């Protein structure tokens, strides 16, 4: 498989102000710190973490909504600079979590779906109308949806409209930022199946952002686990679920309820994630880690292969 997009030690810092003429401490929120990963063509990568782990920030970076403070992006092997982005905008689209906020209430569905084509230019009104009609059927909505307004649709239907909009410019990658978590469980599987089906038919790649490992299991090829803005583990789905290498991943997996399996004791992590305004020194996970030793409090672990598994990387001094 060929590499579609790659992040090279990307950091995102937000300056929360302070430190100016009229005082206060300068506060910097470290939403993502030195994160590297790549997505291959036709692959689905899950970005998993708790809220505040920086997963949505990284999703925004990939979708071009947030410029990294440090590090670089590559698209089809070429650096994503101002020129590179101009072409990549068409190829990378985004679907958001809240299907109610994602559609302009004053636009009819046909205009919403065709909007990326309008923005990118080079299409006639007739072409856009035809494309919208085609897409509405592709995502499983009736044709008469085209002339109606968002408020006439349910949450699941709106998410289908949002997906149709993302498909409009025939993208190669769709960033799906928790696309299911605002939907009813019965609707979730329908939308998930639609995404799968579209991937098979169109050869799409997904960056699937989720806080829920259980959902991830059905769709993705590889999983990347984030903690406090750091990538702590990245591995193919089967290996990660079978033998998690990082203690945080282990804890996350233990938290997933599974039928016919007892919850393992002792692996449930305590406490809450520290503030990304003041991350702990050394390994950021050490205050909550059952394995924490002195080295964890001082040295930052680097991402390395788990013993005997070359494609399973984790950042832990005591990786399994």
């Amino acid at each position: 498989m060929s590499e579609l997009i790659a992040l090279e030690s990307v950091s995102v810092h937000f300056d929360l102000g302070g430190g100016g003429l009229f005082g206060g401490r300068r506060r910097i929120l470290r939403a993502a710190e030195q994160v590297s990963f790549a997505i291959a063509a036709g692959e689905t990568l899950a970005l998993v973490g708790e809220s505040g782990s920086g997963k949505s920030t990284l999703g925004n970076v990939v979708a071009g909504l947030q410029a990294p403070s440090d590090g670089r992006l590559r698209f089809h092997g070429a650096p994503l600079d101002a020129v590179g982005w101009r072409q990549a905008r068409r190829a990378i689209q985004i679907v958001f979590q809240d299907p109610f906020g994602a559609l302009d209430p004053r636009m009819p569905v046909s205009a919403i779906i065709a909007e990326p084509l309008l923005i990118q230019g080079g299409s006639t009104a007739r072409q856009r109308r035809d494309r919208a009609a085609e897409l509405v059927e592709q995502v499983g909505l009736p044709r008469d949806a085209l002339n109606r307004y968002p408020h006439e649709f349910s949450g699941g239907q709106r998410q289908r409209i949002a997906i149709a909009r993302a498909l409009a410019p025939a993208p190669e990658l769709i960033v799906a930022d928790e696309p299911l978590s605002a939907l009813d469980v019965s609707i979730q599987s329908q939308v998930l199946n639609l995404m799968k089906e579209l991937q098979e038919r169109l050869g799409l790649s997904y960056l699937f952002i989720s806080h829920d490992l259980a959902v991830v299991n059905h769709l993705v090829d590889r999983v990347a686990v984030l903690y406090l803005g750091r990538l702590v583990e990245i591995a193919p789905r089967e290996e990660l679920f079978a033998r998690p290498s990082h203690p945080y991943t282990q804890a996350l997996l233990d938290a997933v309820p599974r039928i016919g399996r007892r919850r393992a004791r002792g692996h449930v992590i305590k406490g809450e994630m520290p503030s990304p305004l003041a991350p702990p020194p050394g390994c950021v996970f050490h205050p909550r880690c059952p394995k924490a030793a002195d080295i964890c409090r001082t040295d930052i672990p680097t991402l390395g292969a788990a013993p005997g598994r070359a494609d399973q990387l984790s950042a832990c001094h005591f990786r399994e």
Partner: protein
Amino acid sequence: MSATTDLAPPPRTDAAIGPWRLRWRRFRRHRTGMASLVILALLVLFALAAVPMQHLLGIDPDATDLLSRFDPPSAAHWLGTDDAGRDELIRLMVGGQISLLVGLVATAIGGVIGLLIGVTAGYFGGRLDALLMRITDGMIALPLLPLLIVLGAVDLTKLGFSSDFAHSTAASFWRIIIIISIVDWTSIARLVRAATLSIKDRDYVRAARASGAGASYVMPAHVLPNVATPIIVALTLTVGRVILFESVLSFLGFGITPPTPSWGNMLNNAQELVTTAPGLAVYPGLLIFITVIAVNFLGDGLQAAFDPRSEQ
């Protein structure tokens, strides 16, 4: 036969009516708002009637006749004549055109300035926002009328305009529009900024930005349609304020230059005439008063019609 009509789907009773239709329905129930709309329409007709009236009666609004000063109302001069023997009614009509036009044009220009500043501040944020809002706050803090008087007193020849132009009616017309619009944009700017701030981080705007849309697309496509209603109300109220400013400036001699009449400058020497010809002091002011109060009630009615919470 009727078989075909039976097969046709019944008309949708649940079909959503457009938001503007809904607003119009609500507005029609607002009595003072509707009355104001009618009054304003009549005022516009009154002002526009100057042209046919001039032709019909063969009266030149600017022609002085010193032999018939302060004539009482007669068949030829329905409201009598002023201190220079000119027909008062025709001058009120022509003055109405000028005053209303100044109100609309200055509001439009000030509205555009406010829109640009508000949108820029709200959309780009950061230091630019802070700077623009400081300027807006500074403008709000200024004593407007003295400032307008100074601006009105500026000698255009010192800015490089020819003396002919500087003393022409056109110059005084555009000067008053420009000086009012450069001081009266602050309320629109604040309104637009607040609205832009609330809209720019919605997901549909972010989706558009992910597709490569910049401010020049997002603003007209997403932000403005969503803030149109409060802007319309604010602009309506601005028209009233601008008409008042025009009348004050023209009255004080810094606005529309005679002989071209405006409701404000027709009151120019009304103070001396208040004993000899009270009518000349009453009519123009009364028209300003009626216009502005109608505009304000119209704004009130629009506010009620646009704000769903006002439904009690």
